[in-house]
């Protein structure tokens, strides 16, 4: 088992946060966060509600930009590039860093249009190319066999689990390097959840995944690294196995064993 952890160490750093502080007005949501994430790994963010984990996740694709009084200090580097620099085109960043949300949120359009949307807004016109990419993305999320005959049907007619996989396919279609997931299975039944967890294992080969989850067992099952946040602090960041067998911080232990408060 220590072998895989050694392998992670040798991988390329893809996300790096240096002394990140986030404020909403006078409220400090994140305090001096430093973290390094490697390519092709799954990192889980855990912690009680309001601990800042989702805020931090949304810093990586600058989804917080529209929030009133949002203010960030420190640096976040993706692929060695500072993403909060003025010259960074946010649209290009979000092409590299995709996001899957808590509730499945397909567009009220056809299944095909949902997956093709990302390509179209990035100016892809070649119809054959779009079609190929849509098929590939749907296959990658194991949805192809279920929907191949009704690509023209409204995405809203799919089940919740299928919708969420469609949302993942939609993200994959623009070939990002990183996929951010904000509690992607919290609105799904256990079987759909299991399917998505299975999917994460495969996606890890090609993408770097950062996932926020309230489900401790899920974090334990799917992630290589786990970061525990509490009241805006990154309390502990370590191999998932270590976090769940022998966490170094008492707060972490209390949280994962359900003795919080």
């Amino acid at each position: 088992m220590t072998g895989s952890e050694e392998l992670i160490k040798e991988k390329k750093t893809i996300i790096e946060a240096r002394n990140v502080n986030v404020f909403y007005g006078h409220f400090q949501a994140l305090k001096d966060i430093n973290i390094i994430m490697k390519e092709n790994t799954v990192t889980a963010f855990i912690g009680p509600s309001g601990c800042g984990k989702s805020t931090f996740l949304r810093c990586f694709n600058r989804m917080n930009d529209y929030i009133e009084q949002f203010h960030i200090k420190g640096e976040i580097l993706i692929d060695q590039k500072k993403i909060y620099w003025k010259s960074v085109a946010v649209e290009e960043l979000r092409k590299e860093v995709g996001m899957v949300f808590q509730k499945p949120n397909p567009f009220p359009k056809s299944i095909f249009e949902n997956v093709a949307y990302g390509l179209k807004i990035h100016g892809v016109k070649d119809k054959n190319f779009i079609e190929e990419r849509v098929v590939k993305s749907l296959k990658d999320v194991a949805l192809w066999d279920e929907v191949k005959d009704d690509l023209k049907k409204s995405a809203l007619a799919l089940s919740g689990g299928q919708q969420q996989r469609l949302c993942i396919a939609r993200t994959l279609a623009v070939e990002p390097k990183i996929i951010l997931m904000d509690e992607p299975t919290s609105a799904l039944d256990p079987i759909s959840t299991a399917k998505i967890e299975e999917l994460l294992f495969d996606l890890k080969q090609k993408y770097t995944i950062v996932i926020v989850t309230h489900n401790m067992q899920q974090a334990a099952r799917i992630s290589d690294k786990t970061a525990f946040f509490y009241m805006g602090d990154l309390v502990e960041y370590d191999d998932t196995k270590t976090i769940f067998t022998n966490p170094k911080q008492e707060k972490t232990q209390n949280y994962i064993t359900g003795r919080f408060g």
Partner: protein
Amino acid sequence: MKNMTNAQKNKLIDNAFKVFGIACTFFGLIILAILIFNIVEVGLSRIDWDFIKDLPSRRAQKAGIYTALMGTVWILFLTAIIAFPIGVGAGIYLEEYGKKTKWASLLEINIANLAGVPSIIYGLLGLEIFVRIFGLGGSLLAGSLTLSLLILPIIIVSTREALKAVPSSIKDASVALGASKWQTIWNQTLPASIGGVLTGVILAISRAIGETAPLIVVGALAYVPFAPSSPMDEFTVMPIQIFNWVSRPQHEFAVNAAAAIIILLLFTFMMNGVAVYYRNKWQKKIKW
């Protein structure tokens, strides 16, 4: 009353209120029904093809509503093409782009208040600005511009409501894929809210065609011998024609007025019907 249980008492109160509520509902409906019945009784027999296509005349039997009807259609058309883009554009700006500053909320309150300003005030405003300063005279264009001003607040407010009803998760999904703000509005927010936007616009315009006061102030005439053929022509509209007829002493003109009212009512009912149809159609199509 004394030997009733609490539950029985509550049930009694419950039923009493139900009866009261039904009475309230029917009060309005009955009054309206009496009104419509009255008008239909008087005016229906007067409506025929000649009534619609005849020009106004001093003799009630020969008078038609053609010029007024065409004036209303022109006003309708011009007001729609002026108010729709401006109102929807302003609505989109305020809802999607505008920063939530103190100025923005001040602006918001003002727009909401404008919707409640008496229409005669708009008429005076139109008279000063469009008729006199712009020199448009008592033309269709001046009238439409004035009515556009009048219904802009309604369109803006209803556009914003329709945009607000689009779940932010859809916008988030689009933005997270790298879409710009405009791409998101054009591809997601507007298509998802178009039903609501159109409903608001149609209802606003159907209010505009019933307006009389501002048009009188702007200079719409009670008697126009010919149907207008360009936006710069003089005009009259149905409500003014009706007002004109009603104020005459002869009974025949009152019949004419009733007939014209039926046509005007049909007009507004049709537009409201279209609005309701659109609303239902879009509500059914998109279930969040």
